[in-house]
């Protein structure tokens, strides 16, 4: 086997013209239960290391696991949302391997009897096209602890001198969702992969089974890619890129692997079946350890746990309680709000759907809510390079801001200054208006003083306007607005100016 340097790539367009990509995606989601899968240790993000363990999650001798019923319910919810069958009976199994983050020397998982199987999900691509992804199975298991590699470079394992292990994460409930081979995506394979993971994330959130925050590792994807010469050709050898942790990385990983494998095949070599790692900084994958005996996990039924046999009544009860799915909700909201397809897509892609919905619920018009979140706030979020949802302003505050405008208390220009105050943590909009003294000057007396000064300063303009040319009146209005620091209602100023000049 010849090692092909990672820089050897076939241009993407060329690669997908000559090869047919087939994908397989495994998504792990950490369930948002209060306690772990098999013990009552509390789960909370960011706790001190090794403060959320019990003898069970540490694998101490004699410790016996007990299944978290809520985790089973969440797994069933996920299975139903993915149009899966729910097993009449299923078992846990031990997946045996040695690694410091697995304190028991096995992971409690499911093997030949997953709780959910044979499902599908329709994935909407950015241009509105739909692609169906078939689900082979969704099974319950537990997360491993967290290794931190010390020494060497920047947390990478290469060159590490030792590792530090924190078992807080060991035993957190996971559901792993495995697709059937995703065929027929062609050149859109990277996009389909990304949209699939994003669709799952949205479903997890809608189901309220996980916070599903990619940046915290709540959702992690393993991405399998193989190439074949055409849809009728046998499947090619696949690689599995592990722990791809953002939507964008999922898309880039698939794209990169297609270009890389095409180069390997073009050179007459064979793709090595291996685990690879994605490098966000360089945009390439590199090989991990070539597995020799690691695949032999010697699964066997977990003797310490009895089977899970969800009654059909329970399953139907859970089904009846499922919330509206994200795709249906998007269609409903688009209808309610009257957004054009492109507008709706932009809103969804910007992550503004929930924010706008809440703003509209606060009494703002759909157009008004969109104006703020997709305009001023999107601009500021981009500037600060943070997601829209983490801006320090709530939908209720935006609704309040819009009400202040509608009521004539402030104008658009002042509203942006009020927003500055809200984002700076000075309180709700009304409070900022008060404390910063941003209210529109609606007192005609104060306005007239400013107008008279402006008229006196620009007699030539006054003359022109008197002569019947209203064009230059803007200069007067501008002067008044400047004098009132933008706090005047421009429309009212115009009325008063014309009145004053005698027009």
């Amino acid at each position, binding site marked *: 086997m010849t090692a092909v340097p990672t820089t050897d790539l076939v241009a993407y367009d060329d690669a997908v013209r000559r090869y047919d990509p087939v994908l397989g995606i495994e998504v792990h989601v950490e369930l948002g239960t209060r*306690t772990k899968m098999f013990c009552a240790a509390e789960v909370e993000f960011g706790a001190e290391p090794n403060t959320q363990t019990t003898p069970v999650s540490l694998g101490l001798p004699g410790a016996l696991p007990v299944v978290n019923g809520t985790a089973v319910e969440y797994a069933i919810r996920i299975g139903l949302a993915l149009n899966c069958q729910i097993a009449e009976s299923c078992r846990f199994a031990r997946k*045996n391997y040695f690694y410091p983050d697995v304190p028991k020397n096995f992971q409690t998982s499911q093997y030949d009897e997953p709780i959910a199987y044979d499902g599908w999900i329709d994935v909407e691509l950015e241009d509105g096209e739909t692609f169906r992804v078939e689900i082979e199975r969704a099974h319950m298991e537990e997360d491993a602890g967290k290794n931190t590699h010390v020494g060497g470079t920047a947390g990478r394992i290469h060159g590490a001198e030792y590792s530090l292990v924190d078992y807080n994460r060991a035993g957190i409930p996971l559901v792993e969702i495995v697709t059937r081979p995703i065929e027929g995506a062609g050149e859109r394979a990277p996009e389909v992969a990304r949209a699939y993971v994003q669709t799952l994330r949205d479903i997890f959130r809608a189901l309220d089974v996980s916070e599903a925050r990619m940046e915290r590792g709540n959702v992690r994807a393993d991405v399998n890619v193989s190439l074949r010469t055409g849809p009728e050709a046998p499947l090619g050898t696949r690689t599995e890129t*592990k722990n791809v942790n953002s939507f964008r990385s999922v898309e880039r990983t698939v794209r990169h692997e297609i270009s890389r494998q095409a180069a390997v095949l073009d050179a007459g070599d064979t793709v090595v079946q291996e685990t690879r790692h994605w490098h966000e900084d360089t945009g390439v994958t590199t090989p991990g350890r070539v597995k020799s005996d690691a695949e032999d996990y010697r699964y066997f039924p977990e003797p310490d746990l009895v*089977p899970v046999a969800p009654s059909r009544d329970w399953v139907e009860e859970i089904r009846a309680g499922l919330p509206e799915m994200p795709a249906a909700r998007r269609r409903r909201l688009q209808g309610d709000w009257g957004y054009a397809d492109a507008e709706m897509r932009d809103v969804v892609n910007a992550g503004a759907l929930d924010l706008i919905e809440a703003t509209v619920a606060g009494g703002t018009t759909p157009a008004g809510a969109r104006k703020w979140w997709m305009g001023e706030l999107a601009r500021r979020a981009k500037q600060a390079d943070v997601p829209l949802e983490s801006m320090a302003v709530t939908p209720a505050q935006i609704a309040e801001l819009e009400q202040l405008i509608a009521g004539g208390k402030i104008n658009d220009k002042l509203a942006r200054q009020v927003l500055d105050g809200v984002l700076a943590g000075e309180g709700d909009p009304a409070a900022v208006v008060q404390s910063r003294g941003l209210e529109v000057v609606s007192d005609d007396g104060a306005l007239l003083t400013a107008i008279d000064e402006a008229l006196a300063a620009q007699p030539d303009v006054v003359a022109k306007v008197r002569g019947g040319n209203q064009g230059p009146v803007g200069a007067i209005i501008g002067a008044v607005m400047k004098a009132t620091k933008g706090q005047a209602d421009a429309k009212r100023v115009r009325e008063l100016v014309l009145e004053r000049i005698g027009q």
Partner: protein
Amino acid sequence: MSTISRDEVARVAGLARIDLRPDEVDRLAGELDVIVESIARVSQVATADVPATSHPIPLTNVFRDDVPQQALSQQDVLAAAPEQEDGRFLVPQILGEE
């Protein structure tokens, strides 16, 4: 005829991180052979309508409520750690993948 080879015993022992001497490999190959043969005989008797037994007790759905209980203290957890740093177990450099 032996169905379990010495190589298989050595391989499985390796996977399970059990260090066996050559004479132990010989002895275990023979003993495992007897066990496998016995199970093969049972398999002949078992018919399709007899489900495989993984749990001898006819119990299902033993669940716990999702209510937190007292966790071990960090001090207790690390009490038996050969080495530790910053509240975490210190383990030798891990070769291979992350």
